[in-house]
């Protein structure tokens, strides 16, 4: 029996807009084992960030269940939820807007430390802040620096230290390296992996960059317009993609090797509108293999091999 730290069932988030209901997240279900990493990939607007924020209730979901260690977070009152915050944390994409420009490194990290009632006196708090700074690889002398004095990589480390300060069990990483340069990106990815090993963290890693997600995740979930189209262990997904969208995504990754670029699968057109979608496969309009079947109802996720789920009418057949 695997130890599932998080179970998300039929999570939905609809936004009311002037033109109708925007289905940002539409019936997402997954389970996450303790100490593992789930990667969520998809293009902008596919609902991957919204999913992450719904789990933390930074955005209130419309419907569904988020069961964390056996407790449905969506049923908690405001105050109880606040207390659970020390178990779940988030790291943001933009290292420039995720830190309050008026707070020093010390103040930012201390904010997280204070949530844990363990540390009371200023000296204890400072000691803990220094420990955290060391954990994420920030030099002691930066303790009174303001975010604007630091570069993207160091800012991102502050964000990570702030999240770690509450000693969380699950961290949602929302595109944590997209805004960073490649050499810094690798530093942060290595740091995240190392922290996972040391502290036994569980990650949900949201990104649009498949090669990064592949590198860090044990399992990958591909989203399209608010729905899961394919979910599989990373190696399996890359070796044996089934959904036409996954195939197209994989073929679109630019590979930094001469002559490595294989046949590209071109998608027709662009992402369709997530506002009041019709009851059909949402990918059908761009799909190369779309047939009549695809117009009849949303395809359901089905297991094609152990752990490999696909939502498609036509594949695998």
């Amino acid at each position, binding site marked *: 029996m695997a130890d599932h730290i998080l179970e998300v069932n039929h999570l939905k988030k609809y936004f009311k807009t002037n033109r109708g209901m925007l289905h940002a997240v539409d019936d997402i279900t997954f389970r996450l084992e303790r100490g593992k990493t789930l990667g969520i990939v998809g293009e902008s607007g596919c609902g991957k960030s919204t999913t992450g924020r719904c789990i933390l209730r930074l955005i209130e979901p419309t419907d569904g269940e988020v069961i964390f260690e056996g407790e449905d977070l969506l049923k908690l009152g405001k105050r109880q939820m606040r207390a659970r915050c020390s178990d779940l944390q988030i790291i*943001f994409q933009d290292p420039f807007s995720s830190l309050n420009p008026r707070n020093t490194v010390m103040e930012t990290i201390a904010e997280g430390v204070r949530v844990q009632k363990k540390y009371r006196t200023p000296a204890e708090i400072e000691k803990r802040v220094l420990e955290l700074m060391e954990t994420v690889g920030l030099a002691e002398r930066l303790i*009174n620096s303001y975010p604007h004095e630091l570069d993207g990589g160091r800012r991102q480390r502050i964000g990570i230290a*702030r999240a770690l300060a509450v000693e969380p069990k699950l961290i949602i990483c929302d595109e944590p390296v997209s805004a960073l340069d490649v050499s810094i990106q690798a530093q942060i990815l290595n740091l995240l992996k190392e922290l996972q090993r040391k502290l036994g963290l569980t990650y949900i890693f949201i990104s649009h960059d498949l090669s990064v997600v592949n590198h860090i995740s044990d399992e990958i979930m591909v989203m399209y317009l608010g729905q899961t189209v394919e979910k599989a262990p990373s190696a399996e997904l890359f070796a044996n993609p089934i959904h036409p969208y996954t195939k197209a995504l994989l073929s679109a990754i630019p590979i930094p090797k001469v002559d490595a670029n294989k046949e590209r699968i071109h998608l027709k057109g662009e992402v369709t509108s997530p506002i009041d979608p019709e009851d059909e496969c949402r990918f059908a309009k761009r799909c190369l293999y779309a047939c009549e079947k695809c117009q009849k109802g949303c395809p359901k996720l089905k297991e094609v091999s152990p752990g490999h789920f696909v939502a498609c009418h036509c594949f695998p057949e």
Partner: protein
Amino acid sequence: MSTETMSVSRKYRKRSKLGEIWHHLKKNKGAMTGLGILIVMFAVALTIDFWLDMEKVIGQNISQKLQAPNSLHWFGTDEMGRDMFWRVVYGSRYSLAIGFVAVMVSLAVGVPLGAVAGYYGGKVEGLIMRITDIFSAIPSILMGVVIVSILGSSTFNLMLAVGISSVPNFVRITRAAVLTVKNEEYVEAARALGKTDLYIIFRHILPNCLSPIIVQTTLRVASAIVSASSLSFLGLGIKPPSPEWGALLTAGKTYIRGYSYLCLFPGLAIMITVLAFNMVGDGLRDAMDPKLKR
């Protein structure tokens, strides 16, 4: 142990946070000039009752009326032969207080309301903003008249009236600033840490909304002084013959063609005060913004 670790953040820090602000403010010449002017003015206003003979301020001497500025009467004399210099100096006692207290009142009421409206949105915002709209639809003089007649005519009620009539400005400006800040990721990060809304508003949102609020505050000081004078003119507030800059200005208006200095000096006094507030405000804004520090 504790002293040893505390020294780490001390080691890399030259000053405390307030010290830091002061250090940067000190380098700003405009702000220091403004601060100097304000200190002198407040010192005069606070102590004037102890050293100035009221006779100099309100004593009439018709034989010397409407004299142009000269060595005896630096700012000239008014239609009752009163020395304008002393009247302007004594006026600071009222005008500074009105300007300062009235703006503090509107700040204290307007900023929290605006912050709440901007942060929560939805129905709360609708309610606050509609009430604000209703308030700003009533001419401020009329509102002042109503407030003063309800509460009774006194200097403090006058300040209150003036302050309340400029609350809508602060609500609107604060709300607009909060709207831009509240979607920043650090606000979300604080929510993810389980901080309360009140903490987030005061700790993360308002400090990043300071610029427009400070600018508005310094500008409002001037209009508060002037609108207080219109209320005094209507007999609701400071009673003549006590001089107050706005009242001096209104009184001088009748003579502006022949004796422009009657308006000039109280006008200058208001201008210098506002300028001083403005320079200090700008300086403070820059000194409190870590991004502008080098």
